[in-house]
């Protein structure tokens, strides 16, 4: 697919962005939990044109054995982009970018998983970006923590993530592909709400200290919104299961 042309303006005179959003508005987010059969846990996220599937396996026996740790589970993470997920085909060989993102995404999740309950095992998180539209590492983290929860892995809480950036001199929430490419800065953030910890923070571009502080506040506010969406997505699957189980129990009592 040919790359879309550079838009003349990223923000129009009324302060509206190319996709019709305000500066502090998220793209539409769709979350689904438990959509894969074989994985122990799975989740799917759509955020703008991002389409990301996450599968979690574990806790399971560590392979190769030498990576196992005596006092905790090893968390493993792979962030991967499908060759067809971007305008120009991506070489399927793992890129340096994917290796870096796998590391920072793993580090964003480590502190919420109760790894010390499962020594000598691994917990594997596979993030497959099927279509990429800016902010895919954050959407990946949002879905990954849902997939971990779906796998029944004990966690302190869910991690929510969202990026902010700077376009035409203004801080803007949740940049799309074009905004990321033609904007001035990108600041992805992952947040653990109750522990009040930022567990992923990266930045490229130029930001003043004030812009950084403002952007961080915007990102954390968005993470709060996303965090409640995550909780709803889990309820949507598990409240139904609970109701079905309760109904069955009632009929059994009657019989």
């Amino acid at each position, binding site marked *: 697919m040919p790359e879309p042309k550079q838009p003349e303006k990223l923000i129009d005179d009324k302060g509206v962005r190319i996709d019709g959003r305000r500066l502090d508005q998220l793209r539409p987010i769709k979350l689904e939990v438990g959509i894969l059969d074989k994985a122990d846990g799975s989740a799917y996220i759509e955020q703008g044109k991002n389409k990301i599937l996450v599968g979690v396996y574990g806790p399971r026996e560590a392979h190769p054995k030498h*990576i196992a*740790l005596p006092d*905790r589970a*090893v*968390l*493993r*993470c*792979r962030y991967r982009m499908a060759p067809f997920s971007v305008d120009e085909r991506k070489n399927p060989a793992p890129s*340096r*970018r994917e*290796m*870096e993102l*796998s*590391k*920072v*995404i*793993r*580090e*964003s999740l*480590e*502190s919420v998983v109760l*790894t010390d309950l499962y020594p000598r095992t*691994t917990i*594997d998180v596979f993030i497959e970006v099927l279509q990429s539209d800016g902010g895919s590492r954050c959407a990946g983290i949002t879905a990954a923590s849902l997939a971990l929860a779906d796998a029944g892995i004990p966690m302190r809480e869910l991690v929510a993530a969202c990026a902010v950036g700077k376009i035409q001199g203004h801080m803007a929430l949740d940049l799309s592909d074009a905004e990321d490419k033609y904007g001035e*800065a990108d*600041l992805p953030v992952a947040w*653990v709400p109750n*522990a*009040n*910890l*930022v*567990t*992923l*923070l*990266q*930045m*490229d*571009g*130029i*930001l*003043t*200290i004030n812009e*950084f*502080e403002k952007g*961080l*506040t915007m990102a*954390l506010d968005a993470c709060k919104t996303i965090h409640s969406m995550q909780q709803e997505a889990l309820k949507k699957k598990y409240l139904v299961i609970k109701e079905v189980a309760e109904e069955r129990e009632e009929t059994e009592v009657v019989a």
Partner: protein
Amino acid sequence: MSFTPQLPPVAKLEQKTVIDLVANGKRIDDRTADSYRPLQIQVGLIEKANGSAQVSLGKSKVLVGIKVETGTPFPDTPDEGVLTVNAELGPLASPLFETGPPSEQAIELARVIDRGIRESKAVDMKSLVLLKGKKVQVVFVDIYILDHDGNLIDAASIAALAALASAKLLKAELKGDEVVYKPGLHPLPLNNHPVAVTFAKVGKTIVVDPVLEEEQVMNARLTVTIEKNGNICAMQKGGLSGFTQDELKTMAHLAVQKSAENRAKILAAAKG
């Protein structure tokens, strides 16, 4: 695939000592929380490189070499030269490093240094074009870790800037299809001077320039790269836990001050 690394057993035994010291306002090497280890910068050690710098940050030692060669530009940036940053964390530098393809630590290090240089537009990429879309100069920044005693990111960032600022190249021109070099060296055109400042959260305390023992027990790490006007041009958080919003703000402000101090030392050393 990225997986949780193993902590050396000694680090686990030292853990409490290191954390207790920091909690009491001391550090294992007798520094204050906001001070760097002694910094030494030497430029021009490698005659065959266009630029080079060796940096000692305490016992950490990093050598950076700059090579400039002709090559082809990327199709999406036909009117810019090419910048490539690579890092080698060889087994010579630490028992923690192994031979083989670059580790994720090496990739992260190289990419963080790359972001600082690229996003601050430090190297004047337009000036590296010989024939638009066809021939440009390619700047290779190769980071060689010689001795690892913590905070390789700052040592590498300092060495990379010193090497770039002291780099000299031949004037290249295009005659027909041939690249010809004119005699006489001129400096590599630099527009900005990015400097990385790295913090570690040890226990509940933030310290700057963590030594290896502190890195091994830290909860989290943050690198803030500041360009010459005091703006942030790159950031990277590492480590298994995280930072509060207030901690992040404090570090961003402190980074501006610390980077200015180091930048002055780097530019003085690069002038020779």
